[in-house]
């Protein structure tokens, strides 16, 4: 989907303004709270906060220039409006949520179930979600891919992958 020029300009301005706000927030909140030594040393030449402070100021200036550029200058028209092909916004959101859930599940299951079982579960779910329905391909890949990857890392490269409660 191709966005029209005015919408693209608005989008680019909003994005640049968002970065301006981010850098402002870093100056006001991020650096004072994120660097404890800032309270004691301030911004002296030897302060640990001086360098991040200078970078943030530079980021602020560049983001303001990006806003001006987006408002006044030429904006390249993107062929991607941020949505995925012809899917509706709720559908995108549902899929994005699903991806987040799968990633979170993989992360959380890795230690209790072990690398092999958790990867087989995630792999199986994603392959089916991806559209594969042939039983033979499903069985072969759900067993084969995680096992081969596991052997490559755990046995050949001697990486101590999480084993969970399984005896291998």
């Amino acid at each position: 989907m191709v966005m029209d020029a005015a919408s693209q300009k608005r989008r680019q301005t909003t994005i640049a303004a968002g970065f301006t706000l981010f850098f402002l927030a870093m100056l006001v909140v991020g650096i004072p709270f994120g660097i404890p030594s800032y309270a004691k040393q301030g911004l002296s030449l030897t302060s640990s906060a001086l360098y991040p402070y200078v970078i943030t100021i530079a980021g602020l200036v560049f983001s303001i220039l990006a806003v001006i550029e987006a408002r006044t200058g030429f904006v390249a028209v993107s062929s991607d409006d941020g949505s995925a092909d012809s899917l509706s916004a709720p559908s995108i959101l549902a899929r994005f949520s699903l991806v987040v859930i799968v990633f979170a599940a993989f992360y959380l299951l890795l230690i209790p179930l072990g690398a092999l079982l958790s990867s087989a579960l995630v792999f199986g779910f994603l392959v089916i979600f991806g559209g594969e329905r042939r039983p033979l391909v499903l069985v072969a890949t759900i067993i084969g891919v995680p096992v081969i990857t596991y052997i490559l890392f755990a046995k050949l490269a001697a990486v101590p992958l999480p084993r969970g409660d399984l005896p291998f």
Partner: protein
Amino acid sequence: MQEILNGLDLFLSMQNVLAIVAGMFIGIVIGAIPGLSSSMGIALALPFTYGMNPISAILLVVGIYKGGMFAGSISAILIRTPGTPGNICTLLDGWPLSQKGQSRKALDIALYSSVVADLASNLALILFAAMIASFALQFGPAEYFWLMTFSLTIVTSVAGDSLFKGLVSAMLGLLLATVGLDLIYGNPRFTFGMLEFSGGVSFVPLLIGLFAIPEVIDFYLRKQSGLVHGSRSGSALTWAEFRSCLPTIFRSSAIGVGIGAIPGVGATAASFLSYSMAKRSSKHPETYGKGEIDGVAAAEAGNNAVAGATLIPLLALGIPGDVVTAVMIGAFLIHGLSIGPSLFQTQGDTVYAIFFGIMLSSIAMLILGMLSMRLFARISDIPRHILMPGLLIFCVFGTYAIQNSHFDILVMFAAGFLGFFMMKIDLPVPPFLIAFVLGPSFEDNLRRTILVSHGDYSVFFNSYICWFFTALTVLSVGYGVLSSRRSRSSAEANVEGNPGHSA
């Protein structure tokens, strides 16, 4: 002359040849798997070298190092995941080539430019080791600072459509690089009490997350129709195409050798510099980032030329140029070889035998590279709905393998969402990554220079090296701004001819 002949005599044994071939094979396998590094491969191989003669042992680890450096390009081109940080630039054009069904061409140029650069690097090691090492020793904090400043100006070349957005991205990268303990005083910055962030944001999880995970997310969001990725590999690289890339390969090799000889700078900076120079000197810079074989050649020649050159300060001065050569010291120590200037005087025969083996490594890289690419190129045949979950597993296992950290996986996923977000808002990732890589060294050298000089800023200009890099920095920034304005003007001119797309 007698030492050279003795060295040849020492080298000519089947065990030495097998060692370099085996090392190269292990290196290629390790390098092609994201998360597994050459340093890890060398560390694992060290115990096996106990029973070998010193020359075979050194050649085995040198083979792993060089094989790993080249093979990182395979995964960068085929699955958008650089095997090593030095291959980040390779994917900028390698992956688009792959998407166009020209992965074979991309892999071919990656291999050939790697071999040429490796050969150039080996020759530099053999002919100019002592001279280059003594030049590199003249680098103090101020010289490093200017070198880093010059390297950071590369962001203007890879900023994309908007220079300011590229600079915003670079500032975000510099800011993220400040997370962790302050390098000078050890004060925590943006750690928020989390011990895992004390050492900063881990680089490889960030790298894997920024490049590989957005592809996975994007695939499931779009759920692209057509289960097959595309044609297997496309046509091979022609002699004419290779010949047209030769100037870039030679220039990038020279950059790689120069950078490699300076301890602590590394293949990533060399690769970025080479890519930037290639783009700037190209007659059609607009094709870079969209599948330009010259871009792949520049990146690969740049990073592979570092491999031989890093051995210059190691052998001549005993200074490891990067993490891998630091691990390689272990192999020298195990076999009672004391590296440094005395090595050439006391073990001249052994050094020349190693040099002969290193020369052979380029041929081994060519042959094994051609064989392995045929195998790896089949990755393009795998349907994407099977490749993507497999890639996810590789990313998770590879990230965990770096330091056996569960937390790193979280960092990788977070970087993945960040990369996806950046992709969607057209914020270029390369400036972010260049700044993140060079940021710590830039800050460290800046602050060290200020501290050592007690606030006397003239120290930044007290050597000809400082002036040289200052001039290069000014020229680079000027050129970057000028070319950005030029490309915008030409884009505007194009749009005027097509009002439907104007702003």
